[in-house]
């Protein structure tokens, strides 16, 4: 068994809903934390991030962790989210050679991995390109 339901369930706001924090100082944090990582204030409220962002940089990773064989190779991006934070996150639905810096991306829920013994599935947020013609 390598998937333990409480460990995934408790992160549902981060993994499924992209909940971040917004401090009174204006700093936006992802994942959410009750303390601002810039000014140290505890005046941080929860906000739901739009999931829209710009791809600042990306890489194609050929090494993987056990359980991630099916998503090889993995595309990973440095994304500036609309609300401000820059995060490193997996990209999905990518065709070879189609990524470029400055592309618009959006969050989508995807299967992350499954437990080989009992079939439990972990879902989470990845990012995909917003292509011409998409809304």
């Amino acid at each position, binding site marked *: 068994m390598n998937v333990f339901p409480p460990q*995934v369930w408790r*992160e549902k706001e*981060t*993994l499924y809903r992209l909940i971040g924090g917004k401090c009174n100082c204006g700093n936006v944090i*992802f*994942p959410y934390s009750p303390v601002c*990582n810039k000014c140290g204030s505890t005046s941080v409220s929860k906000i739901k991030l739009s999931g829209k962002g710009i791809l*600042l*940089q*990306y*890489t*194609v*990773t*050929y*090494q*993987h*962790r*056990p*359980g*991630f064989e099916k*998503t090889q190779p*993995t595309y*990973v*991006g*440095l994304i500036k989210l609309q609300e401000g934070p*820059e*995060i*490193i*996150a*997996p990209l999905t639905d990518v065709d070879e050679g189609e990524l470029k810096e400055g592309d618009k991306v959006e969050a989508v829920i995807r299967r*992350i*991995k499954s437990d080989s013994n009992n079939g439990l599935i*972990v879902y*989470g*947020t*990845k990012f995909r390109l917003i292509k011409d013609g998409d809304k």
Partner: protein
Amino acid sequence: MPNVLISATSMIKIDRYYEYDLMDLATQAVVKLLEKTNENIKPDVVIFSNTYAEKTVSQVSLASKLCNNLGISAMPIRIENGDASGGAAVSTAYYLLKSGEIKSALIVGAEKMGDFPASYLNEIVSENLNEKYQEKVGLTTQSFSAIQMKEYMKKYGVTYDYFAQWPVYMHKYGSENPYAYLKFPVDLKTVKESQLVSDPLRIFDTAARADGASAILMTNEELGKKISENYVKVKAVGFSTSEFRIGEIPSVHGALKTLGDVKADLMEIHDSFSINAALILEEMGYPRGKSLDNLNEIPVNPSGGLKSRGYPGGATGIYQVSEITQQLLGVFPGHRISGNKGLVISTDELGTSAYTILLER
């Protein structure tokens, strides 16, 4: 406050030891260390520096078990702060000794990474990523490093060849180090054509993950001088933390700043990736975007660094301190750099914490 000395050091060759477990390796390092001391040492404190034991060998209570194996009773402490554990362990011992409450500390760094295939090692090292998101969605640290490289290439207009200079130098030095895991030289062509890990990061840019153990004995001056005439002084330690940031390693900057204005004759730095070597050197004041162009002029990593000497997780920082100590004493059995002051920069995989340790002959 008492002066703090490093009174003895030992290392075993970094390698894949299928025949030995973690405690075997730690014990071997201690046995080698004890052979170098005049006195029968009963340390007040035993610190076990190790990062990944829960996952690699399913063990806890490492320091207690080591004490019991060695037949000594001491205050046992296991220190884990990612791959900066070694820096954390030495800094902790430094302050304990400075307090005057203890006279000696035995610090043993040991790690077992050689038993596993690459994918499981990626799983182990991904423990460095954040729990809520990065680790959960399957990321690896290599992707962070690759993105860091690409941003650097864009900012300074350099190509991959710029980074390839680092492993070439490290392997040149490491090929002389009897304790090195990858004890062979490589040329630029070999590096450039090596396996792509995460574009543009290649296998020679990453750290060579293997088993290792190194031990050091830290004492106050009075006891240290009885134990051995071959000692170095720990002049100062510094430390800082920061989040992973593109284009810089603020923790290294902070750790150097707490040390004050220091000119070291040689140094050992934590080059988990070639890009980290460049960023660390640049935090030290070497020119940004050019730090890897003049490696013949920079007295860095005569051990061969994490590329060639190898990377035994939380033991790495203890190796660095052992290496600089032996360099200052003129007994390091590999590539030598002479000098009276040596600097260790111990950081974790992505540079979110840094310790600086200044040693002086």
